[in-house]
């Protein structure tokens, strides 16, 4: 359904060297499937999703690559053509629903606006009925009453449901969810994740789920791409990422999570910090933090190579047990 090829998104004002926030990324998502994109701050996961939506803040721009979606290359569409895709065929939800909702307008008015953008002929009564229907779909109790509420009258979990209702109001084929539950309490998070799974089963939409939480990925994703410093470090089915992790960065992430069932011990942690995009190492971008790195890792970037069916890793040293 969505196929990204060699995407490179750069930021650079005139006269200054360009900085690539996303640097040569290939990804695919199929209908009805969920692709989890995992990585830490600065890995480029949010810029990747804004590139797909063509919502890059200036001076960001797509410098190379294709974003194939339903037979079109989104990277090559005009802004006007892109407006037909955005919202209607691809929708997006963000981490903090409070900042995405207008505090001065009722929930109903905001859902109506989302519907009217793509269906200008809808009558007021029709918009209200569809708004109530949308709230019902995201399991908001008493939708006939809540539709007249303002955002501040709702809890964080309810607001995120409203955002999902708005995103799904035009039945998109692809939903991009950028840290959709990070700001929510754990019990509310569990409900919102369940809701997304149910809605996906009902509609067959594809989901790109951007998160730093490997627990959320394990529960939601079919495939996972682990990103580091603008590139894909490892890509595999969800089970393989957890059971057969290949990239040292993936290992470091898995070792860093405190586990609720595990006896407390020293966490693995990854020493050092992510390099800033203007000071990237010449070879593998993870090499300065990698416990397995050798001289080769510092000379050229490792290509993403197939290591098992459906699993690709950008590491010269994987699998690490073969290092003599």
């Amino acid at each position: 359904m969505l196929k990204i090829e060699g995407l490179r998104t750069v930021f650079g004002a005139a006269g200054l060297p360009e900085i690539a926030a996303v640097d040569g990324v290939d990804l695919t998502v199929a209908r009805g499937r969920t692709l989890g994109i995992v990585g830490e701050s600065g890995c480029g996961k949010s810029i990747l999703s804004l590139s797909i939506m063509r919502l890059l803040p200036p001076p960001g721009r797509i410098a190379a690559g294709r974003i194939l979606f339903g037979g079109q290359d989104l990277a090559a569409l005009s802004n006007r053509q892109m407006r037909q895709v955005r919202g209607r065929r691809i929708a997006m939800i963000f981490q903090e629903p409070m900042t995405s909702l207008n505090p001065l307008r009722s929930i109903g008015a905001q859902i109506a606006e989302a519907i009217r953008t793509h269906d200008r002929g809808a009558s007021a009564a029709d918009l209200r009925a569809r708004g109530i229907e949308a709230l019902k779909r995201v399991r908001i109790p008493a939708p006939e009453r809540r539709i007249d509420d303002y955002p501040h009258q709702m809890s964080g979990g309810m607001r995120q449901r409203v955002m999902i209702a708005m995103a799904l109001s035009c039945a998109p084929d692809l939903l991009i969810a950028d840290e959709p539950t990070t700001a929510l309490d754990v019990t509310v998070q569990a409900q919102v994740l369940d809701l997304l799974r149910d809605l996906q089963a009902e509609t067959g939409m594809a989901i790109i789920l951007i998160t730093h939480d490997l627990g959320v990925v394990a529960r939601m994703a079919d495939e996972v791409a682990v990103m580091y410093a603008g590139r894909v470090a490892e890509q595999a089915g969800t089970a393989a990422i957890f059971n057969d992790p290949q990239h040292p960065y993936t290992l470091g992430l898995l070792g860093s999570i405190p586990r609720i069932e595990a006896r407390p011990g020293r966490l693995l942690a990854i020493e050092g910090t992510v390099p800033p995009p203007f000071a990237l190492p010449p070879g593998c971008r993870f090499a300065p933090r990698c416990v397995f790195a050798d001289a080769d890792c510092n000379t050229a970037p490792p290509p993403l190579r197939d290591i098992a069916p459906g699993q690709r890793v950008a590491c010269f040293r994987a699998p690490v047990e073969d290092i003599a």
Partner: protein
Amino acid sequence: MTPLLEAIDLARHYPVGGGLFSRKPAGLVRAVDGVSFTVAKGETLGLVGESGCGKSTLARLTLRLIDPTAGTLRFEGQDITRLEGEAMRRLRPRMQMVFQDPFASLNPRMTVAEILAEPLLVHGIGDARQRRARVEALLPMVGLASHHADRKPHEFSGGQRQRIGIARALAVEPSLIVCDEPVSALDVSIQAQVVNLLKDLQARLGLSYLFIAHDLAVVRHVADRVAVMVLGRIMEVAPAEDLYARPSHPYTRMLLAAVPRPDPAQRHLPSAAPATADLPGPLSIPQGCRFHPRCPMAVEPCRREEPGLQPLAGAPGHLTACWRAAELPAWMPPPQAPPAPAAARRLALYAERRDQARDSG
């Protein structure tokens, strides 16, 4: 033995509303509503709860940054609830705080050396030379280099800033550090670094921590004992091992069940999402047990009368505030698959390499 810190029925209520010209408040927010706990020397008490449960208000009460509406606070046996002036000033260095947001809690115009020397200056500790020496000693303790002393906060990553925040708390050699969500703004690899650092410092300096967090997995890794809060009250408190092995309050169970495990084998298990997750606010604390509107076990008595913390039979130090504690079914954590051999082998190699790298400097 006298605990380092002891809170008895601590409460903090805020009047709200009533309009600009009205003298009567419209309501009372009971942010902290009768909390008792102790923190022993060298111990970490984890304090867990969801947003709005009053855990940050409790942190500020503990440090006497705000005054309690009711209750008693003791530090090393001394009643400090109403301590003021010079006596309070002398106590302040003994209790320090590490904040959640390392971006907001460091003055961007000061160098690291100035930030770390400031608490010494405020409390009149040492002369300029001694303060400089203290700064020099603090940096390596938190894993920073001496050349970092002359830099400003914006030159550091989030994890390094949190190290600066920890160093600042350590500057005046406190006995107790209140950590309010110290790692929740950090990436997971950095979070692990800071958790390890806090544990190392505790082992080395005999510190006590009041560790406030919403992440139950992080708390399990740092706390000796854990208290679970709902709407301004502690509902369950127990030694960490015991709390996770047999949670004895329906709320604790709800929290534990809802955490998504990093284990794809569990993805097909039925969801642990509670039917009703939304909490009433602290402005409208329910009658009876304050958890009953969300409780799957609630019965008539729960709606009428509030349960107090009661010791659990056969589990020393484990207290729970639930009328039905004795009737709860046996706790069944989600089934655990053993780690896959390939993953376990590689993680072991990773740990081995990391330790080698550390030993060789």
